[in-house]
């Protein structure tokens, strides 16, 4: 029966008891709320309904406004409706239907992200190299990036590690350490992009750099020595060439000098010969004019010169078996001494008489006298 039928005791249909009884009185509650808002918005009972309407309108408005969002420059907004992907929005202000109907997730697509890898790995010829790899990438498809792979960035890192090890594993150590760096980086890039595309991760690889490729630290000394050895090889060759470039010109110079000296000698000798020949010829011409006189003169001049310039011991022995005492060694040494002290040989025998060594000049005369005396005694 209806709750406000006469005789029904005005029972509250909800609580089951008489009106105003225990239990939440919903009608009163609403009335109180309406009164409160009515007081805010102004007006009495009737106004409270209007206020309540305004309240609802306000809530609805707020809810609607919550759908406004801004996509920053360099980002994209991925719009999901009830979980289903509907759109990607460009930078700028947008509106989506408020939650729980639609929601938007923004993704930074322009800024480059980077991954750095460092590690030791095996090469094709079972050598070990130390490699430094840098990868730069950005998000090319925000929807794929969000929906297809969990943790796309970590995925990329693991994939890069796998890729570089695969590519280095196919290269020889020399290739990896020297001229192969850019090619290895290119191969890694291709491989990495293939893998990302295979996972549909929505990632675009921008650059791959093999920043460093070194032999492992433990063996670097040996590697450096090998490089040094190559330089040594060149150095040895250069030193030898320098030596060659020194001795050959010097030898040539020497050769020229020898030849020139020979030529000088030749000129000298021929000229001397010519001079002497000329001298002789001229003298001979005079000699022919007066042979005997010339001969005598020449002879006496020569012998005189000889005798004046040397020390003499005169012996005049006329037969007999006399034994002469001739201390030649003393004479010779005295003569040498006299020659030394007198410096130049002079015509006369008068020389200075040093106290220590007896003067040979005076002795010479004494000798001569002594010997002549001795001869006379006989």
């Amino acid at each position, binding site marked *: 029966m209806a709750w406000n039928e006469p005789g029904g005791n005005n029972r509250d249909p909800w609580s089951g008891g008489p009106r105003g009884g225990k239990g939440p009185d919903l009608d009163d509650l609403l009335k109180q709320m309406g009164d409160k808002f009515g007081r805010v918005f102004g007006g009495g009972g009737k106004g409270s*309904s209007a206020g309540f309407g305004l309240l609802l309108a306000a809530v609805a408005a707020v809810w609607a406004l919550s759908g406004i969002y801004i996509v920053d420059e360099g980002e994209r907004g991925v719009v999901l409706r009830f979980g289903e992907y509907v759109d990607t929005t460009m930078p700028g202000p947008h509106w989506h239907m408020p939650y729980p109907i639609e929601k938007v997730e923004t993704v930074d697509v322009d800024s480059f992200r980077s991954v750095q890898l460092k590690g030791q790995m095996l090469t094709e010829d079972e050598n070990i190299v130390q490699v430094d790899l840098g990868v730069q990438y950005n998000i090319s498809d925000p929807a794929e990036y969000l929906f297809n792979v*969990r943790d796309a960035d970590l995925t990329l890192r693991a994939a890069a590690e796998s890729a570089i090890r695969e590519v280095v594993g196919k290269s020889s150590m020399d290739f990896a350490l020297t001229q192969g760096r850019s090619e290895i980086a290119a191969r890694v890039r291709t491989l990495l992009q293939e893998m990302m595309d295979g996972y549909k991760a929505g990632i675009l690889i921008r650059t791959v750099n093999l920043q460093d490729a070194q032999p492992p630290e433990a063996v670097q000394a040996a590697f450096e020595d090998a490089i040094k050895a190559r330089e040594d090889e060149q150095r040895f*060759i250069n030193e030898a060439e320098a030596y060659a470039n020194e001795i050959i010109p010097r030898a040539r110079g020497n050769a020229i000098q020898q030849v020139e000296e*020979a030529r000088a*000698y030749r000129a000298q000798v021929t000229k001397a010969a010519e001079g002497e020949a000329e001298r002789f010829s001229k003298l001979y011409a005079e000699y022919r004019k007066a042979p005997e006189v010339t001969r005598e003169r020449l002879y006496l001049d020569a012998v005189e010169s*000889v*005798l004046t310039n040397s020390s003499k*011991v005169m012996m005049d022995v006329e037969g007999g078996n006399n034994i002469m005492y001739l201390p030649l060694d003393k004479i010779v040494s005295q003569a040498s001494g006299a020659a030394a002290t007198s410096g130049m040989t002079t015509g006369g025998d008068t020389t200075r008489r040093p106290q220590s060594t007896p003067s040979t000049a005076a002795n010479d005369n004494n000798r001569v006298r002594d010997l002549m005396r001795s001869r006379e005694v006989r």
Partner: protein
Amino acid sequence: MSRLKIAAVLLAVVVGVIAVSTFTVDERERVIKFQLGEIVRTDFEPGLYFKIPFVNNIRRLDARVLTLDATPERYLTSEKKNVIVDSYVKWRIGDTANYYRATKGDELRAGARLAQIIKDELKSQIGNRTIKEVISGERAEVMNLVRDNAARAAADLGIEILDVRLKQVDLPANVSSSVFRRMEKERATVAKEFRARGEEQAKAITADAERQRAEILADAYAEAQAIRGEGDAQAAETYARAFGQDKEFYSFYRSLEAYKRSFSNKGDVLVLEPDSDFFRYFGNVQGQR
């Protein structure tokens, strides 16, 4: 009560009912709808769907590509050598129902079982190959074969394997150190070779230069001697021509010169008898002979 209030209350009720009897499926999710514990439907595209509250409940699973990163393991190659391999698997839920039945949606459990499958497959593939093939020549083949062969076993788990990739393929630490030594020795040999080659070439250059020098000097000596000879011959001829005019006079003249030059020093001692022509008038005013 006003109509508005009734409307508001009704609205709240409707919202509540809707909330309990609908669900969304996100792009990143696989959802299983159960009815009283039994799987009813699994193939939900992203969007909004209905369910009966309390009768149906749903379970959400990650639909994205997931990574199983194994710890490095030791495997034996065909040459009976040990190699340490670190790998990862890219997988996702293939058959949702099978996956749930096998793992109750527990990723860790799924991962553990998948890891075992992969490990067994890797053991088999690596065990058939040499180290070099695993590192280099057949690396890609190993990865593809593991993926393909494991796919069947993984399908039983409701798992779809996208990719199996080897990260590290390395020698054990103690072998690494012997590799280092080998590398050092190889480098030392190369270094020695360089230096030996350099020395060899240097010696060749030096020897050649010295040979050239000897030749130059020898030629010069020969030429010089010839020139000197010319000079001597020329002089001799001049002398002969001049002195040949009168051999006897030349003899006399030249002897006198010789005497003068020989005895020119007080150090020379002459022991003489006064019987030469020089002393002709020495003891006799008329001159004795």
